[in-house]
């Protein structure tokens, strides 16, 4: 006969109420774990999505995500010219917030080196890669944009031609991919007067160079945002993505490391930089919250189980007079603690499955997480039952003889 089950059945309302309370705590523990995993996934998904071997950034920085990196675009051509380099792409990255359709739209803008990189490597759920050098973007669905939507930013019209799913920046903002030229336009987003003044300054600077004096026709190009005359100051890029032959990756990296104006990281190092730099503090904070919640859950279950045991003091005394073993009495308390934990956790998982997809930040629940937290719940319940078990074992059977 299972006394724990029969007692629970007799006081079902209180058991369910207690389990619900515990479930909410466990749901928050699960959410913490899921948000952490989401944070890690969000932080690294961009690095994984662009599918490159090496990241060349400004010398001495840890850019472009953990640190600001500014490179002259000419470095793309320098890298592309190296032996064993299959492809070199310019890359820009900037978090922006703009108004769109009457609401505030916060996103991370990634520049793709069109036409070398049109976004084919991205996992598009709808639409197509970028095919025009100007005016097309690929956006993450989390931003609420759909194919055909037009963003009016920096006096430019950018039309959504492709959609991704759950492609987020480390801050949880959805990603928008544009050509490097468009990205730089949006990033610079300066007033018309300032743009005109800058064009004039460019033209003036061009005239003061040998190149400008030798080729006056170049003046016509200074109004083009994608113009990259080496002698002119042009908009910097954040990084150069380098695709190399796998067998030669180390050698290329060693060569790039010799350059005085750049630093180079592998994709794995770039992911680690993101985790160490961008995610580290939120990760610690989440871990701290999780520890507090685990302790709170343990105390709550412990208090509930202890109160349930106190309520049964007289019954336990009667059972002792019958000759009940400590194992049976301890088992009664332990099984009830485990029942509260397991039922509470089951409800917590159900809550999580229903509620987490609606959270503003992505919550990733993996099988490993669910099983890991379940093991934690079993441990919490066992530890929480100790006080109740000690009380049960200390009950004086003489209490059964008291009126």
């Amino acid at each position, binding site marked *: *006969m299972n006394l724990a089950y029969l007692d629970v059945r007799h006081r079902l309302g209180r058991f369910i109420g207690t389990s619900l309370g515990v479930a909410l705590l466990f749901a928050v523990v699960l959410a913490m774990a899921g948000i952490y995993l989401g944070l890690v996934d969000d932080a690294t998904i961009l690095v994984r999505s662009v599918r490159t071997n090496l990241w060349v950034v400004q010398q001495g920085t840890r850019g472009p995500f953990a640190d600001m990196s500014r490179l002259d675009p000419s470095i793309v051509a320098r890298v592309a010219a190296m032996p064993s380099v299959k492809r070199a792409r310019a890359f820009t990255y900037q978090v922006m917030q703009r108004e769109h359709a009457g609401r505030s739209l916060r996103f991370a803008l990634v520049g793709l080196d069109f036409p070398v990189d049109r976004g084919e490597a991205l996992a598009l759920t709808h639409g197509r890669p970028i095919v025009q050098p100007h005016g097309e973007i690929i956006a993450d669905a989390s931003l609420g944009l759909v194919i055909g939507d037009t963003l009016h930013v920096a006096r430019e019209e950018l039309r959504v031609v492709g959609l991704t799913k759950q492609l987020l920046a480390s801050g949880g903002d959805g990603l928008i991919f544009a050509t490097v030229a468009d990205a730089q336009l949006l990033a610079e987003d300066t007033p018309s007067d300032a743009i005109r003044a800058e064009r004039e300054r460019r033209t003036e600077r061009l005239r003061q160079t040998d190149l400008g004096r030798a080729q006056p026709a170049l003046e016509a190009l200074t109004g083009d945002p994608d113009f990259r005359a080496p002698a002119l100051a042009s908009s910097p890029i954040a990084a150069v993505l380098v695709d190399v032959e796998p067998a030669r990756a180390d050698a290329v990296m060693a060569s790039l490391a010799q350059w005085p104006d750049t630093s180079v990281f592998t994709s794995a190092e770039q992911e680690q930089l993101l985790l160490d730099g961008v995610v580290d503090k939120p990760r610690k904070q989440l871990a701290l919250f999780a520890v507090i919640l685990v302790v709170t859950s343990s105390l709550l279950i412990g208090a509930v189980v202890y109160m349930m045991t106190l309520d049964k003091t*007289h*019954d336990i005394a009667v*059972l002792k007079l019958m000759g009940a*073993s400590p194992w049976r009495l301890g088992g009664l308390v332990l099984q009830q603690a485990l029942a509260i934990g397991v039922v509470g956790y089951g409800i917590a998982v159900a809550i999580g499955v229903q509620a987490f997809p609606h959270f503003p930040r992505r919550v990733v629940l993996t099988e490993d997480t669910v099983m890991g937290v379940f093991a934690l719940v079993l441990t919490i319940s066992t530890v929480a039952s100790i006080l109740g078990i000690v009380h049960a074992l200390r009950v004086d059977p003489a209490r059964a003889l008291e*009126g």
Partner: protein
Amino acid sequence: MDALRAEHLEKHYGQGDTLVRALQDVSLRVARGSVVALLGPSGAGKSTLVKALGLVSLPNAGRIWFGDQLVVDNGRLLASVQELRRAHLGFVFQRSNLVPFLTARQNVEIACEIGGTSNPKKRALELLDWLEVGHRASSMPDTLSGGEQQRVAIARALANHPKIVLADEPTAALDKVRGRAVMELFRKVAREQDAAVVVVTHDHRTLDIFDELHEMEDGRLSPTALATVAAH
């Protein structure tokens, strides 16, 4: 043959000026198949004696035998208390003390399980039928009358064929008719189950049921009260 024998039991609480001698040189023999009443005013030591005999609160001195087995020697327990309770003792309390989350049958069945009975459910139903509450086997304790609760409690006490049944004021919460019915059940238990039954009672209207009466006062068994029912 004696089912229960106690010799020179002493039990005291406190020390010095606060010393209370709850049992003083108490000796008692209870034969199998007999029903014995412990009478006396409150504080006389009746419940202390029952606790000592039930190994709930051991005496400071003296010896106790269950049948031929010496179980307490000079206040020291000589075997596992759980084993001794399972094998020899059954308790009936002032209130029925049924476990509230178990049905009548389960209350008896759990005692059978603890005692290691091979078919506890069958044994529980047999006992409830024998005590004429079999029809309430599936009822929860709070739906039973006081008399029915005590019958279930007696069935529970008999679950493991105890040689000794100790009852501490089992009719205190019952009216006269139900109280007498329960006392008669104890005689039935003694006769038909061949158990020694020791009952603490204040109810002088049911004394004719008992084989022996023992009166306690100030921790002593009064020699003048060692009269048998036959002598009344």
